[in-house]
């Protein structure tokens, strides 16, 4: 895979000197990274390295103690999550967080929430504008569900479908908000090898077909090496390496962070 990182591509997401502490623990320390438009960027690192914290700061769930996050050139540091989502950052969670007692269709429709304007009065009186908005929301959700082969689950409650399908519904929900950047927190965890393969295919296709940028945290090295254009490695809250996947794979610092003294040749 050719790297598209750097020159010529617009920076979509950028953090500068990002620092997040929890009490005495420094979860993320002075963390810088750039994500360029149209690439799949992976954030990897051992457990507790601070990857999810970076995600949570970027998506507004945590406020950083220092540093800044800018998205498409605008500073979004410390903004509320719903504000950041409306700006075009859509995410999924490490432990799937669907709206369990709602149908898959309603879950995916959630993505469009921040894109429609109708208020109380237009909802009460079902104005023409409100009805056409509702129609559009359904259509967007329907297109996503069909595209991801989940349409048959539309009327199932989210809690009742298989784990792998729940993961895909969560991604569909994020995509339904028509984001500029899709932020996936361990999308392949809990998936079997076949589902992981399908997910990789789907993401690769997505990045080509749609104007999208993907940032993911991933533990499965096959996924990381298979689809990333750029890999950033974290350990103990700091960035220890970044580069193209081939380079990262052989980087001694990365190998040390992952394997420590236990050298069985497998990345965890």
């Amino acid at each position, binding site marked *: 895979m050719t790297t598209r990182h750097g020159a010529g591509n617009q920076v979509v997401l950028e953090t500068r000197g990002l620092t997040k502490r929890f009490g005495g623990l420094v979860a993320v320390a002075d963390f810088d990274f750039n994500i360029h438009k149209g690439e799949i960027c992976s954030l990897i690192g051992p457990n507790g390295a601070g990857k999810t914290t970076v995600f949570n700061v970027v998506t507004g769930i945590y406020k950083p103690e220092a540093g800044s996050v800018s998205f498409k050139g605008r500073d979004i540091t410390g903004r509320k*999550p*719903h504000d950041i989502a409306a700006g075009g950052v859509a995410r999924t*969670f490490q432990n799937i967080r*669907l709206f369990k007692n709602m149908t898959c269709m*309603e879950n995916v429709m959630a*993505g469009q*929430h921040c894109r429609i304007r109708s208020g109380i009065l237009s909802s009460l009186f079902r104005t023409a504008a409100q009805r056409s908005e509702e129609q559009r929301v359904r259509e967007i959700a329907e297109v996503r569900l069909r595209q991801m082969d989940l349409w048959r689950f539309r*009327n199932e409650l989210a809690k009742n479908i298989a784990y792998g399908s729940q993961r895909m519904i969560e991604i569909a929900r994020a995509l339904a908000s028509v984001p500029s950047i899709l932020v996936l927190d361990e999308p392949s965890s809990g998936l079997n090898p076949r589902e992981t393969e399908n997910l990789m295919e789907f993401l690769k296709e997505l990045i080509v077909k749609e104007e999208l940028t993907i940032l993911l945290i991933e533990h499965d090295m096959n996924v990381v090496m298979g689809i990333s254009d750029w890999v950033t490695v974290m350990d103990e809250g700091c960035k220890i390496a970044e580069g193209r996947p081939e380079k990262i794979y052989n980087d001694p610092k990365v190998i040390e962070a992952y394997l420590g003294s236990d050298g069985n040749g497998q990345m965890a």
Partner: protein
Amino acid sequence: MTDRFSFNKSPGASKAAVVAAILIFFIFPFFAGDYAIDTAFFFGIYALLGLSLNIVLGEVGLFDLGHAGFYAIGAYTTAILNTVYGLPVLALAPVSAMAAALFAYLVCSPIIHLRGDYLCIVTIGMGEIVRLALINNPFNITGGPNGVFGIDFPSLGGFLVIDSSIEYYFLIWGVVGVTIWGLVRLQNSKIGRAWNYIREDEAAAGAIGVDVRKYKLLAFVIGAGIAGVAGNIYASKLMVVSPESFSFWESCLLFCIVLIGGMGSIPGVLIGAAFISLFPEIFRPFAMYRMLVFGSVMILMMMFRPQGFWPRKRGRFSPGKALLKQEGEA
């Protein structure tokens, strides 16, 4: 279709059941005595209060155990403005609604970020503060423990004076009907979905673009407004309001209505309200066992049917026409 329960699922049958229920509601008061009609009136009051709490507790999942406070604000607003300034009761219905809604907005704004049991404790405190304030007779307007009496009948400029049981019955159920109509529309809109997203997972709702704070406050404001209208009707029906009508126990009853019926389910609320208001009347001879039965029912419900008697059925979606066409072409 040979399933013997299939009539439950047939839309024709359930539509017929709804029509039959509405017909009974219209015809019943002409054949019943005042006592039965008054009982049905209080069923209506509890249905309206249950619907109002259902927005906060059922749709958004916020534990509000101080809902009687909003009800009290509505009732006292009507009582005071009617007895002191002689404003007509019907015109005071929207005023009561707005007073309760404004109170909810002011009181809930600083506490809306609290979750679960923390919010529950604060709302209990809020309800109690309202009741105690009424007892303490601030500015000499609430009449202290005796309350305010001499509230007028609702009337429309002397043409239509609502002063009999049957008229009150139609008034309250008319309001319940309009409320149900509005709530069904909200349920099937962006707003209702946003409320449910928050109930299901607040963090995920925020991350997908739902302004959690705004929608929680909106639920409180609308819920309090409807409770305020219930207070208005209650005040004119009883002609007297006093603090003891708005005790913590009242908030608990409303909580039970929503839990028994099914969180977020409108038919469920009606069933819960029927249980709370009709049951004690039917079993009046056994009044001393009332609490025992209430308690047992709640425990059994939580054990065997935690989703309520009539949980909400989620909407089903059929394929969009435009998309089917598109697919056919492809």
